[in-house]
């Protein structure tokens, strides 16, 4: 794999994660448990969509094929997406949405922090802009995981169920593959596996406060970030997300 292809893949991974998670979070619009959460969820979605514009914009630039960030978002089919399986998972109840968010945020801060040192200044720049938002996100999602985990019996049960369900999708974020190896070698991005120990420590601390038990099984589903085998959920999301662009090709909006 040449450097350009690897960089394009890497940038799509970053941008597709924020795109897909941003979309999922935006599905909550008007349906949150309290008004403050409606606002907070919209805020997270907004940040993620903004980051998507930067990552996919750079991806399109690196590709050099005349595509735009919107083209990448709106005109690729499911197999060309590089989002991790975690972010594709459906919202479920508010607890599941939050747990997904927390696990993502904790990884996200770690990777963005490392990317601020990227040898590619464009990557470093996007990371620097994004990391502030991500830090705020993880602060909020960790806090809520703790409060709901250590809330009522029902909320505890729901949060533990959410953790159990989502845990098998966490490992993929730390998988290394040839794209990651190429990025690491070029100094553009860290090896994902190298982030795990620190992130695990953070997660352990939060779950302890939340009185939640991290599953012992380290089994991890794979296939999202490589695009080899997404979940069935992603395709359904794309039918919505891409509808207008597909139905009215060539229009300006």
């Amino acid at each position, binding site marked *: 794999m040449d450097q350009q292809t690897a960089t394009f893949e890497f940038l799509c991974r970053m941008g597709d994660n924020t795109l897909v998670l941003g979309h999922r979070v935006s599905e909550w619009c008007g349906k949150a448990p309290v008004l403050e959460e*409606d606002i907070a969820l919209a805020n997270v979605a907004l940040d993620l969509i903004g980051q998507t514009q930067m990552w996919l914009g750079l991806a399109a630039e690196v590709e050099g094929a005349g595509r735009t960030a919107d083209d990448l978002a*709106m005109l690729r089919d499911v197999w060309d997406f590089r989002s991790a399986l975690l972010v594709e998972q459906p919202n479920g109840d508010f607890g599941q949405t939050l747990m997904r968010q927390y696990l993502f945020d904790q990884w996200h801060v770690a990777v963005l922090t490392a990317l601020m040192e990227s040898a590619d200044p464009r990557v470093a720049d996007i990371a620097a802009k994004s990391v502030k938002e991500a830090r705020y996100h993880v602060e909020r999602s960790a806090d809520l995981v703790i409060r709901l985990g250590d809330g009522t019996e029902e909320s505890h049960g729901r949060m533990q169920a959410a953790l159990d369900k989502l845990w098998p999708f966490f490992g993929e974020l730390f998988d290394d593959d040839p794209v990651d190896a190429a990025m690491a070698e070029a100094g553009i991005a860290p090896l994902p596996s190298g982030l795990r120990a620190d992130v695990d420590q953070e997660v352990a601390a939060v779950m302890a406060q939340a009185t939640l038990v991290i599953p012992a099984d380290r089994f991890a589903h794979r296939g999202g970030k490589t695009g080899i085998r997404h979940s069935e959920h992603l395709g359904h999301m794309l039918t919505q997300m891409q509808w207008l662009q597909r139905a009215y090709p060539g229009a300006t909006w």
Partner: protein
Amino acid sequence: PAKLAAFQARIDAGEKVEPKDWMPEGYRKTLIRQIGQHAHSEIVGQLPEGNWITRAPTLERKAILLAKVQDEAGHGLYLYGAAETLGVSRDEMTEMLLDGRMKYSSIFNYPTLTWADMGAVGWLVDGAAIMNQVPLQRTSFGPYARAMVRICKEESFHQRQGFDIMMKMAGGTPAQRRMAQNALDRFWFPALMMFGPSDKDSVHSAQSMAWKIKMNTNDELRQKFVDQTVPQAEYLGLTVPDDTLAWNEAKGGYDFAEPDWAEFFDVLKGNGPCNVDRLEARNKAWDDGAWVRDALMAHAEKHANREVAAE
């Protein structure tokens, strides 16, 4: 009665009434109804636009729409806050919305069927809302007037964004143009209804105007809206769906057809196209979220107890 006269004198003098001031029960009740209904409208108003967030055509449009809906939730917060100063809690008001005791603006009982509706809602619905709200910045109740100042600023931003969508659609492909016209066709009369029936048919108007809770008559505002909007439609190259529309030199404004008030009262009664869907959606959100609200409260209590115990 002396108190009442003094109160009216303060209002006539342009003073603001503040929450701890004495006020007539009718003033309080009318305000609670009006501010509450306005707050509920912001909340329910998230739904028709939320309906298109997942289908927004570009990342930028998605972001703009998300930000707009977020603003609406924010307006809801300000307004509930203003109403709470009158002694009614947000949860109480929410319960009254959910079981139908309190209303929200009927316009949100109309469906959003194409992307052009995001333009039409911004342009016409926010346009009409601003027309209603700008004078309320001078309303007699302080917290309400101050909330309105913040809200109006954002609403006029939203209206411009809506108009921008309409411009893109009206100047786009034939299909987009058709979409834009279709949206105007569906939203024109419902937008006119937003000002309420003619004041001659309105019960509470005179008292509300004396109290400066209501600043203009419904018909005045509707006329103003039509006069402002028709040239915009012309600019867009779209046709207002009213054969009787004509410039009246004498009155310096347009003559236009009244909306179908039978439809208005039908929608008010609960028979609008989306009344059931909207209330179902809000009720579901509230019921599904109960465990979260309970848990946050339980956690806060535990936490407080632990701190006390640790002292």
